[in-house]
């Protein structure tokens, strides 16, 4: 998805061969959470980092706002080398980088309004401004009616909305989402992702989110990096990684999101068709079968959206007729064909 031209080439966040090794509790050695990670997050994009637990996602996102410090390489955020910032510089950076958490991390003894006001008070803003800004933020996340409640009186989704309002209080450029929907049910996850997407569109907020769910990436991200044992094993536009994963880890996540086709004991040529955009809705399959005389059996399939782009993926076994011609005809219709068995096209 193309971004506005002013922002397109500007990296808000850059990881330059970043490593993080935690010292061992006793003796030499240690645990490498991240190894030589290089990444660039462009202004105004939603960047996802997906990985299993222990892959280093949590460390990666905390390096961005200096909650963790790298043991090698550089993290550049909004033009600053995070590790080189002094105490005041780091605090100023943290006001430009909001963060939300899996378990919300709200102050239980403060009301919703007081929670949202907290970062503004920390920054020493005048009371009148704090009050006005808090009301505005609560309005944005739809919690104005709950301003005087305590977090314990809210649902999970409402708590995360408070977290989001609080993270936005100081008008940050970047929003870090640390497994922000992992503790929520599917319906609430949908609403929170919708809200996050809206912030990206309306405020031009750059968003980095870490997750272990491919579905979250599919719904909101522009680009994604796949993390495995502290290394980036795949990176690219979400459509590419999702439809044509090249690493085992990425394939595993896609499979988790969609279910996998079992093709053992099937006759004929096994092909996977990938439809994108308008092709998704055209009656290509019937046309090809009629004109080339191939029979097909559908072994698996899915039709979904990647953000705004519809796509479909079908796994077929083609038998009889002119299989090669059928494949050529699919390709002509703008459908990508991957042959899963036998010789190529």
């Amino acid at each position, binding site marked *: 998805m193309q971004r506005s031209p002013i922002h397109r080439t500007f990296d808000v966040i850059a990881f330059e061969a970043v490593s993080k090794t935690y010292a061992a509790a006793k003796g030499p050695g240690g645990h490498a959470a991240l190894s030589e990670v290089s990444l660039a997050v462009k202004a105004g994009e939603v960047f996802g980092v997906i990985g299993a637990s222990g892959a280093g996602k949590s460390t990666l996102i905390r390096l961005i*706002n200096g909650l963790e410090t790298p043991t090698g390489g550089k993290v550049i955020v909004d033009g600053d080398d995070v590790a080189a910032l002094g105490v005041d510089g780091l605090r100023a950076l943290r006001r430009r980088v909001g963060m939300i*958490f899996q378990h919300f991390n709200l102050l239980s003894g403060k009301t919703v309004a007081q929670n949202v006001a907290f970062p503004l008070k920390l920054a020493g803003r005048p009371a009148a401004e704090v009050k006005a800004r808090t009301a505005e933020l609560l309005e944005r996340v739809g919690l104005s009616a709950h301003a005087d409640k305590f977090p314990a009186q809210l649902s999970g989704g409402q708590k995360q909305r408070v977290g989001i309002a609080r993270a936005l209080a100081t008008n940050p450029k970047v929003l870090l989402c640390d497994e922000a929907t992992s503790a929520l049910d599917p319906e609430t996850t949908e609403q929170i992702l919708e809200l996050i997407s809206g912030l990206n569109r309306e405020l031009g907020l750059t968003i980095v989110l870490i997750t272990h769910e491919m579905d979250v990436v599919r719904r909101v991200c522009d680009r994604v990096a796949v993390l495995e044992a502290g290394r980036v094993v795949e990176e690219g536009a979400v459509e590419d990684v999702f439809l044509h994963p090249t690493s085992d880890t990425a394939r595993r996540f896609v499979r988790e999101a969609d279910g996998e086709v079992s093709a053992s004991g099937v006759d004929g040529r096994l092909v996977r068709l990938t439809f994108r955009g308008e092709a998704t809705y055209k009656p290509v399959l019937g046309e090809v079968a009629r004109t080339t005389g191939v029979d097909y059996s559908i072994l698996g399939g899915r039709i979904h959206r990647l953000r705004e782009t519809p796509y479909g993926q079908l796994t077929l076994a083609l038998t009889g007729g002119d299989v090669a011609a059928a494949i050529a005809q699919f390709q002509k219709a703008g459908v990508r064909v991957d042959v899963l068995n036998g010789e190529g096209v």
Partner: protein
Amino acid sequence: MENVAFNNVDWAEIGQATLDTLAMLGGSMILTIALGLPLGVILFLTGKGQMLENRAANGLLSLLVNILRSVPFVILLIVMIPLTVALVGTSLGVAGAIPPLVVGAAPFFARLVETALREVDKGVIEASFAMGAKRRQVVLGALLPEALPGLVAAATVTAVALVSYTAMAGVVGAGGLGDLAIRFGYQRFQTDVMIVTVVLMLVLVQVLQMIGDSVVRKVSHK
């Protein structure tokens, strides 16, 4: 059974002793919090994985607290006499009781404070830093307010412990209800005096606990 008819009970003296006990309790409680709270906060903050992690300082403070806590209070009362005289000019009466009470209770309270602070969700502390808080702001604005119910409960337990400490302080001439119980109830076999003082202390403990519990409920929003 003339004792049980409360013939020995001098109600004016009981009243004075009750006031003395309350004075010792109030004075020592204020000083215990004033000393124990910062001590507990420092114990917590210098602990492993905390924001002011410092093994040497933590080890030293911890040792001091453990030493003071392992001395039986009756012994502490006696050992403290020269220091008490140096501090308040006398080792007798309400004033003379307060230094040993504070030295006995503050380390105890500090440990309870440390435990209460450990109960605070680490995520909340991390979130505060992520919002750009200074350490001082994290401690005063997030850590202590989040621990408030636990801190109030710790103060309640400490106040109840101080009631029994004030009774022991009677041994070295501190006055108060404990003193009456020992001098009249125990040494002169005046069971009625013993009953009255014990009942009064029981009521005092009960009232303290009820106040503490109700404040905890009020400040807790979990």
